[in-house]
């Protein structure tokens, strides 16, 4: 059996963004970062990055301030839980839709 044919018969994920599709559509709570409270945001310098470290999906960037890729963020809330300054708030997606 050729590898090309075989790969159509099994579930095989390679490393890379979004092999499970645009998983951001799973999200019901959106993490929103307040740059006034966030340590790198407040200092305007690379620091902390606890959210980047803990994010299980690798969708938070090590930038000033950190950015979140909402195409793939599933809204698990680990970043908000771990943020030492409580700079991340989980906001209902439905409330954002109404805006």
């Amino acid at each position: 059996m050729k590898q090309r044919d075989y790969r159509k018969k099994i579930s095989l994920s390679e490393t890379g963004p979004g092999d499970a599709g645009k998983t951001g559509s799973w999200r019901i709570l959106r993490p929103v970062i307040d740059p006034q409270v966030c340590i790198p945001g407040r200092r305007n310098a690379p620091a902390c990055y606890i959210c980047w470290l803990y994010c299980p999906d690798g969708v938070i960037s090590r930038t000033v301030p950190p950015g979140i890729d909402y195409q793939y963020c599933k809204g698990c809330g680990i970043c908000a839980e771990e943020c030492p300054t409580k700079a991340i708030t989980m906001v209902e997606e439905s409330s954002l839709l109404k805006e």
Partner: protein
Amino acid sequence: MQIIETGNVAAALGVKLARAQVIAAYPITPQTPLTEKLSEFIESGEMQAEYVPVESEHSALAVCIAASSAGARSFTATSANGLLYMHEQIHWAAGARLPLVMCVVNRGVGAPWTIWNDHQDSISQRDTGWIQIYANDHQQIIDSVIKAFALAEEVMIPVMVCYDGYILSHTHMPFDVPEERLVDEFLPPYLPPYSLDPADPANLNTVTMPDVRPDVRGDTAPGYMEIRYLLHKDMLEAIPAFERVEERFRSVFGRGSNPYIEPYRCEDADYIAVALGSLSYHLRDVVDTLRNEGVRAGVMSVHLYRPFPDELIARALSGCSGVVVFEKALSYGYQGALCSDIKSALYRHTGEPGGRPFVVNYILGLGGREITTPDLLDAMRSSCSPDGGSGDETRWIGLRFS
């Protein structure tokens, strides 16, 4: 080379000749001597393979799944509750499309605890997506193990080779051990179409969406349902593939026959008994006696049970007046699974209801209850008449209530 050995040794020799590279198994009666023999072969250096001792059957099959995913030819064996303990991984191996081979040395299932032979263990794994082959004697065990690797690797579906505990596993019989050189010709080293590669990592069989999805390259990757549909489709394609394997086997080793069924005195038979495994050979004695009494009886064993060669089986049975299915297992609350499958095949492939043979179902030998020739003869005598098929309830042989 002709030798006289047990069925378990026949299976172990088949695995050795097939040059399996990884073996993981947990001992359970009556499979134990098979895996002990394999570990002896490896320990003595006669066989180049990794033997992975494990703490359970679930782990045994998990090891084989991992080894096969890494591209190794892998084998395990078990019986009864050990097989049931693997159940989750049995489905997994089929969905992952890994060409494993497993011997199931058939034994009854607890409760109540039993160590004796029936077919409930492998029959209850019928719907897992594994190919199931039933062997009738020692020659068929060793040959089936070798053919099973060839078939599994052609269609990328795992195969169970099932044979009767004790009746075959622990009895000595003469059989031919194929020459190593010829087995190498028939079964070249396994070249996996895909295997795990640390330089190009991948995640296999993780959560798969209900719908199809674009993969990292932007190609459409199959969803769960596509993967399962292809397993079914390829199972059906394994029917002609088995014939091709059998033909190749015949051309290399000079022996072989119908890979699906084994009919005996069925050509002109009015009544045909059907069974899986060694029971079909026991029934040959009964058929001979009935023939001497002027009853045109025959017996047919089913070698390939999944995928079910329904059209061929219906054709083999359509000319007779009655089919008598003897089973050492059943689907509780209905009837024997083989009986249901045969009825379904006849319904699909024969004409008007009046033109179909009747089908009766006998349940016998559960948990090793002795199956005697006079009992089989009585059952056949009462079924082999124009009204022998009246009543649709399963008939039980050998029950003793005081």
